[in-house]
């Protein structure tokens, strides 16, 4: 590893030190946030927002992990007494909901926020203020959901909240309203983020970065965003109609009045299944970026992988009914969805073989990030196999709602998504904080997590075969489940300890870690062309891209000078001084115009608070509060609309 005991270096653009220094001060003045707590609420910097996204979602990860540990303490032995049935229901609902809505989705958005603009060589996102808005919405929705615990009214209907259990006849309290409104709430954040990623990718790439040269991770964020745009509105509709039923007495899901409970399931899973791939696709994007760096070889089959990513995006919309095989859907329809579920393994297989081929033909260096990648490959293999198994109808009928299913989705969600995320932390945290993490502690963390993970989740498959249903708060002894359950609980604890080691590593690195050089891993993408941590303006001069692996193939890296003309003026250091970034054409990435980056502002925060107040108003059924929220939001929106698009 290439770290040395030198002070934090800066990238020499011009060798002239004194002039360098002066220009940096000017740039600081143009780009820096206002100091103190005010600046905190005003920032629109994509890196700061991205890091906050990541940190906040990890807080939720640890909270939800804690909930899981308590559940496992309850189930460690027959007739446990840690949790009663009601608390157990609340715990698994909050655990599942948090992991999906408040950890996995936002943490991937956070990495995207931080990395995407730098990987495409620009100075910020296309809509920096919307970016801040989506972050604040995410934070407020998390606080909103967790405030339910404070009132002792946590949601208890499972993470998919099926009707009729969740309609107001059978779930009277506000518990489920917390869930429904939080789902709508976070949906806003995810959608806004997706729009931002797409426009940024297609309009702000560095000159020369044609679509053919787009880093694979950026491709995966593009697919992620498109899937979000088509899937999330449908779950918003599902939760919205559920809330209308609950709050305003409509009859969508009430069979006695012509409604249909199956309708809710269709709407929910139309989002729910793509959602698994929404989480999985950016994770594979990270894998496809990290493996080549440590295999010291370009990714095998770039075009194939891009095609596979896009294919996954499409096919995943054709498989939602496989969550409902046991509900009595017509059999022809079921065969179709079963086949589609099998077909989706093909693009995943292509990616898998491309990763193997990359490592095969390269010289693998087993750093901590790479260990996580290899761990991911093994886990993904198992999760994929159990996935193929459940997509076969007769098998699904046997194991549906058993612990086999719990095992399967933890292999996919916790294994195939969380392991790449941890690898990504070890890979990119040096860029974000400027400090290297400890390799030793990292290895310990990986092995503890890997062993704990398999100890916790593999026996669940067997428990499923032995007939243990999911979502039970306890079980009698003597069913042959006791030992396995104990192993599962111990494994969970070991896994949790492993994640804790990474947390410790993180705090240790903040003060003790070695300073990170700009490109400590000798990687190929553009975020490594700037200092660690990068300055507020990312690149003083925008790189001129001529290869898919700019830092590998272009040495030294050409960076543009400014020239008068549309777009050209923003390219060089003068563009950075004017707080602008170039705007390029969608396909060929030729400079087309200059985009001014908005100043730090309270607007996003105010608007998010407005939305939050509306949501609270709906929750407590108070018209006045709702109107107040509308007023706050309205004022913010008006001011915003006024400033949009330089008129």
């Amino acid at each position, binding site marked *: 590893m290439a770290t040395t005991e030198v002070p934090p*270096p800066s990238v020499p653009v011009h060798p002239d030190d004194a002039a360098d220094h002066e220009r940096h001060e000017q740039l600081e003045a143009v780009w820096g946030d206002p100091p103190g707590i005010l600046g905190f609420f005003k920032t629109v910097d994509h890196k700061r927002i991205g890091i906050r996204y990541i940190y906040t979602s990890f807080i939720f990860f640890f909270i939800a992990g804690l909930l899981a540990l308590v559940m496992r303490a309850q189930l460690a032995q027959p007739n446990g007494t840690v949790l009663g049935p009601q608390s157990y229901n609340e715990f698994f609902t909050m655990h599942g909901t948090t992991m999906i809505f408040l950890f996995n989705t936002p943490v991937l958005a956070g990495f995207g926020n931080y990395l995407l603009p730098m990987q495409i060589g620009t100075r910020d996102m296309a809509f920096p203020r919307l970016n801040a808005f989506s972050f604040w919405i995410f934070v407020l929705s998390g606080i909103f959901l967790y405030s339910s615990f404070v009132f002792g009214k946590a949601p208890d209907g499972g993470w998919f909240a099926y009707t009729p259990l969740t309609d107001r006849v059978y779930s009277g309290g506000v518990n489920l309203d917390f869930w429904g409104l939080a789902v709508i709430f976070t949906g806003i954040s995810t959608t806004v983020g997706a729009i931002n990623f797409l426009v940024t990718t297609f309009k702000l790439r560095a000159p020369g970065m044609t679509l053919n040269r787009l880093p694979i991770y950026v491709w995966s964020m593009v697919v992620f965003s498109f899937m979000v745009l088509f899937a999330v509105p449908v779950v918003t509709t599902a939760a919205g109609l559920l809330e209308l039923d609950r709050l305003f007495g409509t*009859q969508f899901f009430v069979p006695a009045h012509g409604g249909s409970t199956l*309708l809710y399931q269709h709407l929910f899973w139309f989002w729910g299944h793509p959602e698994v791939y929404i989480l999985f696709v950016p994770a594979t994007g990270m894998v496809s970026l990290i493996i080549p760096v440590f295999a010291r070889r370009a990714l095998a089959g770039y075009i194939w992988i891009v095609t596979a990513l896009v294919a996954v995006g499409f096919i995943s919309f054709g498989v939602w009914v496989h969550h409902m095989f046991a509900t009595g859907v017509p059999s022809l329809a079921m065969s179709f969805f079963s086949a589609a579920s099998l077909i989706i393994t093909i693009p995943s297989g292509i990616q898998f073989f491309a990763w193997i081929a990359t490592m095969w033909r390269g010289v693998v260096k087993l750093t901590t990030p790479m260990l996580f990648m290899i761990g991911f490959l093994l886990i993904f293999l198992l999760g994929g196999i159990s996935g193929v198994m459940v997509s076969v109808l007769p098998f699904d009928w046997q194991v549906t709602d058993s612990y086999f299913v719990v095992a399967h989705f933890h292999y996919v969600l916790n294994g195939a998504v969380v392991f790449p995320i941890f690898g990504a932390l070890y890979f990119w945290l040096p860029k974000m904080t400027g400090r290297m993490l400890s390799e030793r502690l990292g290895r310990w963390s990986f092995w503890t997590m890997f062993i704990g993970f398999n100890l916790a989740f593999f026996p669940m498959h067997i428990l499923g075969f032995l007939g243990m249903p999911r979502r039970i708060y306890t079980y009698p002894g003597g069913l042959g489940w006791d030992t396995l359950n104990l192993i599962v609980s111990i494994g969970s604890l070991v896994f949790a300890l492993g994640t804790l080691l990474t947390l410790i590593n993180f705090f240790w690195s903040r003060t003790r870690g070695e300073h990170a050089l700009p490109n400590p891993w000798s990687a190929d993408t553009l975020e490594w062309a700037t200092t660690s941590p990068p300055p507020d303006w990312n690149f003083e001069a925008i790189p001129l891209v001529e290869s898919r692996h700019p830092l590998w193939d272009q040495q*030294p890296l050409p960076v543009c000078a400014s020239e008068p003309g549309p*777009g050209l003026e923003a390219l060089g250091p003068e563009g950075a001084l004017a707080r602008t970034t170039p705007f390029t054409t969608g396909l060929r990435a030729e400079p087309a115009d200059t985009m001014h980056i908005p100043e730090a502002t309270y607007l996003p925060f105010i608007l998010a608070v407005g939305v939050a107040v509306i949501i609270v108003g709906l929750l407590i059924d108070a018209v006045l509060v709702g109107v107040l929220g509308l007023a706050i939001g309205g004022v913010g929106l008006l001011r915003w609309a006024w400033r949009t698009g330089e008129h």
Partner: protein
Amino acid sequence: MTTTDPAVGRPEAPGLVYSPPVPLLVPVPPPPPAKRRGYSTGFWGIALVITTESMIFLALLASYFFLRATSHQWPPPGIEKPDLQTGWIFSVVLIGSSIPVLWAEVAIARGKVGQLRAGLMISFLMGTAFLLYTYDDFQKLHFGWKDNAYASIFYVTVGLHSLHVLAGLLISLVTQVKAWLGLFDAEHHVSVQIFSLYWHFVDGVWIFVFSSLFLSAHIR
């Protein structure tokens, strides 16, 4: 270039890549600019907002047909089929209101601010007329949204569309104020483009809502 790849700690083998931990940057002249400027980020942003909002309407219309397919009689007993006569007229008004917007957009691209103001005003009036019609239509209904699933989906879909019309009118107002203040010219009128796209969307959605909830209810 060095011969030792520090990332692997051994001599660089053929076909392996190595990049230095502190990349060297050299300034070069920029590439030639594009011939066309293309649409603004704001334009693409609103286009994607429209994409995702269309999915909400699609989900609602799919729910409509799903509920219809699972019920014996549609609309349920005691509810008359939606009234088409005034519906037709005001549909034409709403969809027609796209024309002055088109006209206004073409005008401002040529720098004609007067035509822009006029076009926006005309479409605003037409949109308002439509909104008043929907309000009136809701007043005349003999059923409430709590009565049954048909009533619920009817109220929610049409109501959501009306909210979109309302939002469109508000955006129109902001754009009009800007137009009257003379903030637009042939080069700078992103707000007009954004409003125009959104308004066409609101009109276009109505075609689907109208044909599903109004026309198709008369087909047996």
